[in-house]
């Protein structure tokens, strides 16, 4: 920079200013990224604080809260029935979607010819993933409760609504897992005389299974947190009701939280917070299982 021609060349550029601008922008970007995480921390702190108030101010026993079933009286309210309903819902929804979803993904990744129909299916899949979950609930309400099929407001209908919400997610993530299996693995199997299905069942699927499981668990976690589709098919906060099977009245943890959050008494507000803690703990468990599977099997096939 000290030679005269260079000085002339860059004479009109204030390097100091350029560097300061760069540093300022870097800080701005960093702050923005922190903002999202800060919001997350605040949210969790807020929920934990409100739940803690429930235990300290209102003397709600945690064991009592988990084991008793929701009541109009906030002193005796609990989340047991709602929890059972939620578990039934996602178990049924998982059974309905896992095999169909993985089957559909196998077809699209391994078999599908590049025809117009397949391209239509592909585009349709992308759109289904973007349909708001409340619309799926509305369609089930119109078709399965008030439409040609009158099944009533039962757990099974809620599970179908959840299944519709998560099916596109499972298909897309399973497709990604199948795509990650290298072609050399398939060709090795073909070379020793295996048919396409033998190759998929014995070679491709086992290799893709960790990825498929991770995607499925995350999709089920999504279903676990859904509220709107369940409200649309008539889910209610569980009053004194513990569901026992797919044909029982529908109730769910998220719907119960929604009901509590809307009541005016402060005690219901802290009950909602305690329900949310329960909801998030289960969610955390699912995510940890997904992370464990991902890290355990990640490096095997590369």
């Amino acid at each position, binding site marked *: 920079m000290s030679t005269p021609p260079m000085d002339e060349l860059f004479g009109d550029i204030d390097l100091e200013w350029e560097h300061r601008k760069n540093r300022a922008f870097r800080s701005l970007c960093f702050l923005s990224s922190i903002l999202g995480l800060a919001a*997350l921390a605040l949210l969790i702190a807020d*929920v934990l604080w409100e739940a803690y108030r429930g235990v300290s101010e209102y003397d709600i026993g945690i064991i009592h809260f988990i084991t008793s079933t929701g009541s109009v009286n906030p002193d005796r309210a609990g989340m047991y029935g709602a929890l059972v309903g939620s578990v039934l819902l996602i178990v049924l929804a998982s059974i309905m979607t896992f095999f169909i979803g993985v089957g559909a993904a196998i077809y699209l*990744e391994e078999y599908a010819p590049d025809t117009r129909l397949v391209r239509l299916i592909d585009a349709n899949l992308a759109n289904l993933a973007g349909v708001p979950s409340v619309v799926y609930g509305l369609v089930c309400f119109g078709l399965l409760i008030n439409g040609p099929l009158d099944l009533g407001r039962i757990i099974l209908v809620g599970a179908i609504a959840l299944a519709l919400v998560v099916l596109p997610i499972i298909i897309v993530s399973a497709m990604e897992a199948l795509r990650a299996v290298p072609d050399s693995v398939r060709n090795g199997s*073909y070379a020793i005389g295996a048919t396409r299905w033998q190759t998929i069942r014995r070679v491709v699927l086992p290799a893709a299974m960790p990825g498929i499981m991770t995607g499925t668990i*995350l999709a089920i976690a999504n279903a676990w947190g859904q509220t709107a589709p369940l409200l*649309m098919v008539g889910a209610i906060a569980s009053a004194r009701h513990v569901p026992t099977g797919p044909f029982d009245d529908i109730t769910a943890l998220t719907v119960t939280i929604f009901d509590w959050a809307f009541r005016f008494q402060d005690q219901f*507000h802290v009950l909602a917070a305690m329900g949310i803690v329960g909801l998030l703990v289960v969610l955390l468990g699912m995510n940890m299982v997904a992370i464990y599977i991902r890290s355990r099997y990640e490096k095997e096939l590369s």
Partner: protein
Amino acid sequence: MSTDTDPEITSADGRVAADQRRDRLVQGGLFLCISFTLLTTLAIFWVLFNEATHFFFDGRFSDVVVSLLTGESVSQRITFVEFFAGERWDVTHSINPGYWVGPLVWGTFLITVGAAFVSIPIGTLTALYLSEYASQDVRKYLKPGLEILAGIPTIVYGFFAISFITPWLIRPAAELLGVQTRSANVAAGAIVVGIMTIPIVASISEDAMSSVPDDLRNGAYALGATKFDVSLGVVLPASVSGVFAAYILAISRAIGETMAVTIAAGFTPQIAFSPFVEIQTMTAYMVDAVRGEAVVGSIRYQSLFAVGLLLFIITLVMNLLNNKLKERYREEYR
């Protein structure tokens, strides 16, 4: 994708033939699986159009279509003019009901625009930080953090809005400005929906930015550009279609978002211009109507599907646009 060469085995061996027969059978079964997705789409269209026809024409969809095709006059109970440019939305009013969807659309519009003001700047800057500035170590913590943010159920965001954002942010701000505010208000709804769509903007934008080839960056560095110049002058313009795809997806999510806005923004359909008043979005109306025991066949019940159809069409258009943009940025740097 699978290989192009089909492993067709020509052999007289019966077992091979049986294997191949089973192969074709399995293919058929798998096709059935995928056809579920087409059935779902058909069901969505059928239910929404059928019930919405009841709302507008007071008749079955098939009857109305047949009458329209044969040129018969169809009596319309609620005209499209009234639906799209009426006076007010009050379906259950016994004497003088109003069927203008405007207040609900306006509520959704306010929330969506407000959320975009939160998620687009923060999400884009986060994406730039992740793709241009962040070290491996920082990425290792930042990305899972954003994934967690994306995985929080929307009802929890709704609770966060009424228990923290409104009492601690919105109410003091309103008091400072000397205006009244309710426990449900536009600002709280917009802020939480904005927060929950940050991860969508950030992760998809970052994807697009990372796919910009390093040659472009290095060319700019060779000319003496700083990281600031490269980020805003090279990377952002080069990834613009992907970044826009991210924005559209985030906006589409904000439009379809239900629980957070129902809890945070309220149940009062109105055209308002203040961030401190209660409004009602299309999705919140759907929750409201279905909870209010809408009797089958009543106008309230059918209005549910008319609003649902409108919501579905809006998000469908956004998704199609998003897919087009995504295709384009995938092709740009292959």
